[in-house]
């Protein structure tokens, strides 16, 4: 009880501190929608990450010994809420900070930690994640990118897909098949690959919304030191599973991100003249309810977790926000159509196209990071203990 009280007091101060620092340091033009596209975007975003590093905010959840502040889930969430509140740009090195760093801390050697952790923290190396393959989507363990050992090197051949940030990442955290004879979960290794190694080619995928945030990455006899393996050779599945839980878990997005969307829906509702209509208010209210539920679910999860480690319940998190987000954008699409029938205002029409791009993206969230069908299986089997399906 006293620990909780302490935390409660502490977090209020922490929120003020973060809010103040962000206000003082975030360049105003970085908060504008679409500010960070185009070639100089990368440069600006790296500079912003460096600013966060200098302020001590690069990775507050990392232990102090690795340059973090050793903060727990509650503090991380507050940071995230304030970061979203002010409209700061998405973290450039999310894979390095959230996935690779913690994985190195848990499974890496001292030499590996020294080689990579600090560079991640300073955003000197931007990372991408190479798990998915064309024939290994929901069934990740069926991945086939082959890493053959020759002396102290892997010779890697194969293909990754849906790699976010591959066009600018310096390094990839990849899962590769090192033992094709072993059962499929047991022949996989976690390997860190320098994206500048000869034989790697990156091809952006044009998405349904016209954007190209994801890529295919091809490996043609790519040589990687075996020393870049995290954990034991052939033990990469265990290394990766911890990483995947991190991906689904609490702390990477807060309800605050959705409040501006609710405000947009609200103003569209009013603009279409439906501000007093029962059906329109119920629809708007449904989204308010969902965002609030997400808020309280996250708050509850944090209150029940002392150390920021989450179990299979994390699946609720991913399932919930992805469905909420898709529904929210769906309503907006309808309202924007209605408004575009009524209005000549070009601001509306500009907003329409941007909303639409986000709408299509939001529908993809039901698939990535483990499809929602997979999440429901996890909930049913690992949270509720229902028997496994026959395979």
């Amino acid at each position, binding site marked *: *009880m006293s620990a*909780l009280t302490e*935390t*409660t007091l502490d*977090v209020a101060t922490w929120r003020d501190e973060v809010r103040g620092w962000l206000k003082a340091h975030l360049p105003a033009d970085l908060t504008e929608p679409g500010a960070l596209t185009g070639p100089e975007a990368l440069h600006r975003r790296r500079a912003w990450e460096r600013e966060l590093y200098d302020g001590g905010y690069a990775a507050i959840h990392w232990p102090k010994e690795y340059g973090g502040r050793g903060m727990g889930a*509650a503090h991380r969430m*507050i940071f995230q809420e304030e970061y979203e*509140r002010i409209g700061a740009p998405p973290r450039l090195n999310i894979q390095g900070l959230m996935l690779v760093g913690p994985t190195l801390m848990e499974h890496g050697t001292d030499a590996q930690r020294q080689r990579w952790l600090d560079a991640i923290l300073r955003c000197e190396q931007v990372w991408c994640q190479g798990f998915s393959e064309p024939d290994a989507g929901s069934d990740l363990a069926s991945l086939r990118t082959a890493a053959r050992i020759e002396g102290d090197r892997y010779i890697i051949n194969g293909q990754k897909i849906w790699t976010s940030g591959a066009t600018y990442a310096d390094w990839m955290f990849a899962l590769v098949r090192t033992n094709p004879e072993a059962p499929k979960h047991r022949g996989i290794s976690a390997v860190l690959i320098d994206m500048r190694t000869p034989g790697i080619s990156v091809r952006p995928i044009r998405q349904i919304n016209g954007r190209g945030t994801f890529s295919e990455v091809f490996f043609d006899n790519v040589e990687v030191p075996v020393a870049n393996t995290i954990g034991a050779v052939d033990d990469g599945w265990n290394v990766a599973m911890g990483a995947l839980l991190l991906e689904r878990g609490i702390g990477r997005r807060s*309800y*605050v991100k959705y*409040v501006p969307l*609710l*405000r947009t*829906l*609200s103003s569209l*509702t*009013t603009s279409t003249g439906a*501000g007093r209509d*029962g059906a*329109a*208010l*119920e*629809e*708007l*209210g*449904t989204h*308010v*309810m969902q*965002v*609030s*539920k*997400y*808020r*309280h*679910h996250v*708050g*509850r999860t*944090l*209150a*029940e977790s002392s150390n920021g480690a989450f179990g299979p*319940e994390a699946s*609720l998190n991913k*399932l*919930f926000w992805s469905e909420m987000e898709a529904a929210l954008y769906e309503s907006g699409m309808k309202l924007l159509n209605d408004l575009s029938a009524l209005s000549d205002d070009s601001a509306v029409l500009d907003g329409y196209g941007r909303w639409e791009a986000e709408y299509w993206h939001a529908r993809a969230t039901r698939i990535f990071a483990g499809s929602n*069908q997979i*999440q*429901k*299986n996890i*909930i*049913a*089997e690992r*949270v*509720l*203990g*229902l*028997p*496994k*399906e*026959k395979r």
Partner: protein
Amino acid sequence: MTGSYGADETSVELATGLREFFNEHCGLDRVRAAWSDGSLDLALWGEVAALGFTGALASEEVGGLGVQPEDLVLAIEEIGYSGASLPLVDTAAVVVPIIERYGSAEQRASFLPGLISGERIAASTVMFGGDRAMFAAEADVLLLERDDCLHLLDRRQFSTVEVHSPDPASRLARVSVESSVLSDATRLAAGATDDARGRAVWAASALLNGVSRRMLEMTVDHAKTREQFGRAIGSFQAVKHLIADAWVAMESSRPCAWYAAHACSQGLADAAAAASVAKASASDAARVVGDSALQVHGGIGFTWEHPLHFWMKRGKLLEHAYGSRGFHLRSLGAAMRDDQQGSDAVFPGL
């Protein structure tokens, strides 16, 4: 942050105590008995009151436990979970604290001791819908909402006519009061109405979440044991996903009630919105959980013999009472519509 979300020591302790009590004293036989004879189990009522539950939110000076709403909310879930057919929630969560806060010295002196000790039973029309109240016919005390004011009446001051209840063990009555009865002497102080409405709503939400929790638990158990096609039906993906959806609806609803209790207790700017979120979520969850429960139970769930329907019907009653889903969603929509950048009525502090 926003309170302890039910995870602090007092809260867990109260809920655990009540759960153990119900496990021991309110098994299926006793739940069933309330359904069969339809009369109030006064013995059970007395036992729960003796645990201090009815006076939990009253201060220690007047003989209560002096705990906060957010400490009680998990315990209220346990009542819903238990299936006990008692008017506990109105008495403990609404009437007693409202009298202590908004009653005159006379009202406090005349009503509180009997309600806290459990000697007297309270009913409340607040947010229930119309002039109806649960267990009004059995109540000694009535908290009546009329023209946006609250009045506190004793048994001689109101009469009741039983009306249909979707839950045979939660009896409903319509109350009638001679207009001459209502006066300054019966009226509670200003502010009582909004406060009572918020309390009624979060408490009903927690109760309903407890009902859903029990239905879901029965459903999971059934899915693990019932076999069809040579395997437990819970191994079928269609059944898994039905149940997973129900679990998501319920687990994402529970902390909304916990937060609403906290916001009420702390007088936060978003207390009204939080109560609406809690009730709309709880109503949603009860419907989704109830649907999947009936579907997964198959034929057996449609028998009177199987206990599922006790919770199904209580869920149906609570789903529509205390403001339907639609009512609360509209309130939220209107609050969002009226929200100015920086207004705290929906998302404070942003």
